[in-house]
């Protein structure tokens, strides 16, 4: 048993090293100055610790705005996604209407359409409606990525709640909607949290849609801000790494706070009759 323990910790150590190595490189590079970050061979630890890369992007390259924009867009997308998604998931989970399978297939199939295919037509659509270069347009676009996924996840969680609970509530006079709100949702709260977090993260990481749908500097998301840093004329690795660190902080913190829910949520979705 003790030997197993040693193997276990050794395995965990390997996992930790593998996972953290790129982060270590990201962070140490972001703390080097321009000259050092391109030296050959690369220094494994900054010879001169400096925050100039962070200062540069935070003060000069407009990153605070991008950060806030990303927050606004990602939170809105997640909320919209989970809002619509919960309703749809409840419909799929609790009802057996005709065409149910077809509709579910549509939701699944929509995940398979590559974004590249959709961008130009979507742009045209937005222009017609007048939503080009608005955050709303971007949020709607990102919802298409997160919505199908959210519906499937939430449906899985809902399926794990026995239907008797619905019936008990309805006997007490609850409407279907109240059922969903007051009875089902509280039961799958970890699942809802997990889904919201995933939806947030999916939209946080988007680059392609933001690139094409947003042109106003004031509305750029942080991912777009980073790709701007990497033009033909500016590959300052220290700044690029600093920006990526900033862009990864939010998701990392979210994981830290939500990790209990994420695992719990995933567990309950796997428990099927």
């Amino acid at each position, binding site marked *: 048993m003790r030997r197993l323990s040693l193997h276990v910790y050794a395995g965990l150590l390997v996992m930790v090293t593998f996972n953290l190595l790129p982060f270590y490189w990201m962070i140490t590079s972001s703390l080097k100055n321009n000259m050092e970050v*391109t030296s*050959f061979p690369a220094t494994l630890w900054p010879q001169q610790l400096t925050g100039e890369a962070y200062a540069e992007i935070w003060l000069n390259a407009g990153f605070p705005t991008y950060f806030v924009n990303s927050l606004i867009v990602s939170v809105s997308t997640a909320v919209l996604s989970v809002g619509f998604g919960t309703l749809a998931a409840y419909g799929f989970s609790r009802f057996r209407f005709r065409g149910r399978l077809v509709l579910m297939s549509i939701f699944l199939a929509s995940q398979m359409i590559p974004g590249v295919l959709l961008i130009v037509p979507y742009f045209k659509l*937005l*222009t017609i409606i007048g939503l080009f270069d608005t955050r709303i347009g971007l949020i709607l676009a990102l919802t298409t990525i997160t919505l199908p996924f959210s519906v499937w996840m939430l449906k899985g969680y809902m399926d794990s709640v026995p239907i008797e609970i619905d019936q008990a509530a309805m006997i007490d006079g609850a409407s279907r909607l109240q059922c969903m709100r007051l009875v089902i949702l509280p039961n799958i709260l970890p699942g809802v949290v997990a889904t919201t977090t995933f939806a947030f993260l999916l939209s946080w990481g988007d680059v392609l849609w933001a690139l*094409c749908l947003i042109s106003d*500097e004031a509305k750029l998301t942080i991912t777009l801000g980073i790709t701007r840093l990497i033009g*033909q*004329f500016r590959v300052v690795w220290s700044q690029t790494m600093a920006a990526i660190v900033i862009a990864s902080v939010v998701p990392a913190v979210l994981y830290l706070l939500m990790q209990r829910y994420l695992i719990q949520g995933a567990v309950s979705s796997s428990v099927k009759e």
Partner: protein
Amino acid sequence: MSNRSRVLHLLSALVLGLVTLAGPASAQVTLVYSDWQLAENVWNRSLREAFAEFEKANPDIKIKYEPVALGQRDTRYSTALRAGKGPDVFALDANPIKQYIKEGWVMDLTPFIAKEGGQQYLADWYPSLLGPVTEGGKVYGLPKNVSPIMLTYNKELLTAAGIAAPPKTWAEFREAAKKMTKATKDGGPVDQWGTLLVLAPAGFDLRFSVVLRGFGGDFLSPDNTKSLLDSPEAKAAFNYVIEMIQNDRSLPPGVSQIDAQGGRTLVANRKVAMAFEGLFTVPIIADINPQLDAWKVLEMAPVPQNPGSEKQIRSTYYMKSIFMNSKSEHPEQAWKLIKFMMEKKQMEKWFVDNNLLSGRKSVNDTFKPILENKFTNAARPEIERAAFLPQIPKWPEIMETVRQALQAAIAKSKTPEQALADAHKAVEAILARP
């Protein structure tokens, strides 16, 4: 009050009323200007200074800047333009111009030019530069600046290696590159290389093309209908590059991934002695590493050729031109901006900031700083010896095919002969498509 003054009062009230009614017509117009050079330090500063001047002279026009990374420019623009949106005024290099014209995305500027004097106005531009921006007799854009690609070298490194003058033939070039590849620290790894090549998509076309042309070859036939990649010159150029990389090892490792800025950084950090660059490179390299003292240490010479070669063309044009969105809502104001950018004074300022030759002959021939600059003096005669890359809509796809072939040969997934032969076939297939 007398009758006369009453009438005067009435008249002035009327005029005032009319003026205020017409007021909205002269209200603020916002023009969106987009340029990949806004994403680079040196150019960005220069553009913003110039535009501040423009806004002062035209208080009813406000400019909104839209930087875009060069690699994403066409993605961004084509998406917006296909939906009828996009910046009012924007800049393009020579490559995609014909495609933009074909898609109808750029405004025909001929009527505006006619108002400025038509042919007389255009006569100041080098005729060869107007080729890419003209289609069917209509002018769609105006060239802002031009540079032939030159052999750019670090004089100090050459002298240190005992090389008195820049190489004139490809054999000399190869020898020089070998001599300047070494380890700068005793016992350390090789960390200085004779030359480099840009093989990432960004900047590949300008640089490999001069090797190809310096060898007397080219990508396509002059009428752009046939591939010339199976010519002996093309094969020679192809093999030359691969041998330098694989046998001589006089290029830095990771050659397949180096893009234009990566190359400039290597030159700036004294890791590479010779490179093929345009005039624009000097301020940028100076900005990357002030300690290098780039203006003093760098020099430029013509692209090498093989002895006895009689070919006129040995270099490629880099050109930046300015265009108007065909669906711009403010064409008059957009034209004002374009005209402003083409003014002599603005061209001169552009040179001072960015070391680039103007598209206008009069500027290059009369502006004293240009005449006294060692770089432009080396470059000016090369203008006659440079040509554009093929100006056809299919060019981006053709160029990518050649680039991938070269990379495959370097990666040893194909022999050089096979890679080039496959590229030749693929290019012919692309040309054959309607």
